[in-house]
């Protein structure tokens, strides 16, 4: 304890600790019935931290080549002590992180936390969600098993359907015309260098923006508090909210540990580029709603290719979603009502299509 005090004094003399930490001490979190939704962003950040740690550990044994990737993951899972646990946690945390990121996005949408002045917080958050899906897509191939091989073939082929630049994008992603060892090397590079670099910067910007604008109070609550200011409640971010957030992280960790231990992530069989695709091939659940929708669109709609139409619709929807806060203010309440309606529709559509994708043959 005395050593801690000594270190604290040393830092204080040089950096004016009190001033440095002032924003943290000033920061507060509104307290109301919907406060629980505030934990989701923090949990997503925590899971991202878990991904960095377990990812670095996996890098110690993983070998990114078509001839060795599958064997090296097998080696991690069967020979390295606790290797099965590290890999299982990495896979489960990836899925949980995408889930909490989606939940965070929808909670921000329905609590209308994206509204002025927080438009850019929403935009950076949406880009982070797309990046997380990029992480999922690129990481899925790395064990070089049959399912991942064909999922990547289908996924990159869909990118190839884009008008004008499609072919070029596909060759860029695959490192050639076909999915080969070159694709694996590329995806490995995206997964461990390109995406983490961009994501780290964006996470910093996102958190700084949250810090800058403070935490949004839902409009309904804000209205009520305006009428009766004595009802307004808030708690200090540090330590009160932070300790609660830590508890949320503990729960997330418990769920993660339980999932990883009770249901360790499988490896499947090694990819064989010259074998037929197995029956019932499906992408990861967070791509399933798009996959299933594309399957439902007929081959030709009017004179446009069905596939192409589907991709264009999802592309435009993604872009509109990214820019969603900018429609909030238009034409009185119409923009806002439109956003809420679109949010409800998107949530219902994603849930329904995902379930349909699971039960469909």
């Amino acid at each position, binding site marked *: 304890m005395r050593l801690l005090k000594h270190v604290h004094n040393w830092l204080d003399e040089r950096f004016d600790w009190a001033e440095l930490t002032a924003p943290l001490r000033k920061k*507060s979190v509104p*307290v109301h019935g919907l406060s629980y939704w505030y934990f989701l962003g923090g949990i997503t950040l925590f899971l991202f931290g878990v991904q960095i740690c377990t990812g670095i550990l996996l890098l*110690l*044994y993983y070998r990114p080549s078509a001839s060795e990737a599958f064997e090296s993951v097998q080696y991690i899972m069967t020979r390295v002590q*606790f290797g099965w*646990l*590290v890999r299982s946690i990495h896979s489960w945390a990836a899925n949980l992180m995408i889930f909490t990121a989606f939940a965070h996005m929808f909670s921000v949408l329905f609590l209308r936390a994206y509204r002025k002045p927080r438009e850019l917080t929403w935009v950076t958050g949406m880009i982070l969600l797309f990046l997380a899906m990029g992480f999922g897509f690129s990481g899925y191939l790395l064990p070089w098993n049959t399912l991942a091989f064909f999922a990547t073939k289908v996924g990159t082929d869909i990118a190839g359907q884009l008008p004008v630049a499609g072919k070029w994008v596909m060759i860029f992603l695959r490192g050639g015309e076909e999915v080969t060892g070159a694709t694996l090397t590329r995806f490995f590079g995206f997964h461990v260098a390109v995406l983490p670099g961009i994501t780290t910067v964006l996470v910093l910007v996102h958190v700084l923006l949250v810090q800058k604008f403070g935490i949004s109070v839902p409009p309904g609550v804000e209205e009520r508090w305006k009428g009766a200011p004595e009802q*307004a*409640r808030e708690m200090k971010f540090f330590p009160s909210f932070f300790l609660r957030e830590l508890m949320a992280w503990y729960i997330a960790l418990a769920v993660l540990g339980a999932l990883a231990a009770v249901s360790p992530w499988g490896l499947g069989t090694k990819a064989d580029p010259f074998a037929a695709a197995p029956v019932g091939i499906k992408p990861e659940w967070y791509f399933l709603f798009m996959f299933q929708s594309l399957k439902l669109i007929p081959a030709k709609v009017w004179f446009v290719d069905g596939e192409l139409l589907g991709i264009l619709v999802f592309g435009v929807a993604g872009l509109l979603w990214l820019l969603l806060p900018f429609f909030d203010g238009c034409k009185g309440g119409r923009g806002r009502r439109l956003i809420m309606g679109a949010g409800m529709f998107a949530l219902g559509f994603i849930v329904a299509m995902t379930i349909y994708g699971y039960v469909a043959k």
Partner: protein
Amino acid sequence: METQEPPQVQPARRRVVEILLGGGLLASIVSFLYPVLRYLVPPPVPDLGGDEVVACKTGELKSNGSKIFRFGNRPALLLLTAEGEYRALSATCTHLSCTVQYRNDLHQIWCACHNGMYDLNGRNIAGPPPRPLEVFQVHVRGDEVVVSRKRGA
């Protein structure tokens, strides 16, 4: 706006809470670190070569010639002396684990890294090597030169 202040708690009860929280935190940190530390230690690599390996065919080596071959996971040195006798030794220098070579001009085994010298029995005779090289047994079986670990070594 009002700020919720943590209520005042009696010191003794606070101490118990602190111990419980701190202990719990410490226990979880240990439970994270233990698997990670075990994970960091690479599993032992099995000695794939076994105790016996065919180093070369008879007639492959010229008199006063040598060859480096794979013995398990490590390199070994086979040499044919001017007297026509096969010798096999570990090729890993006992100083800093460089791979040694046979100098047919000196009739000695030499390590290029730090100028260590061994005689043909593997004894360290000059330079920094602290110990002799391990010597293996050589048998000629048909047209194969078979090297094996000495029993009890």
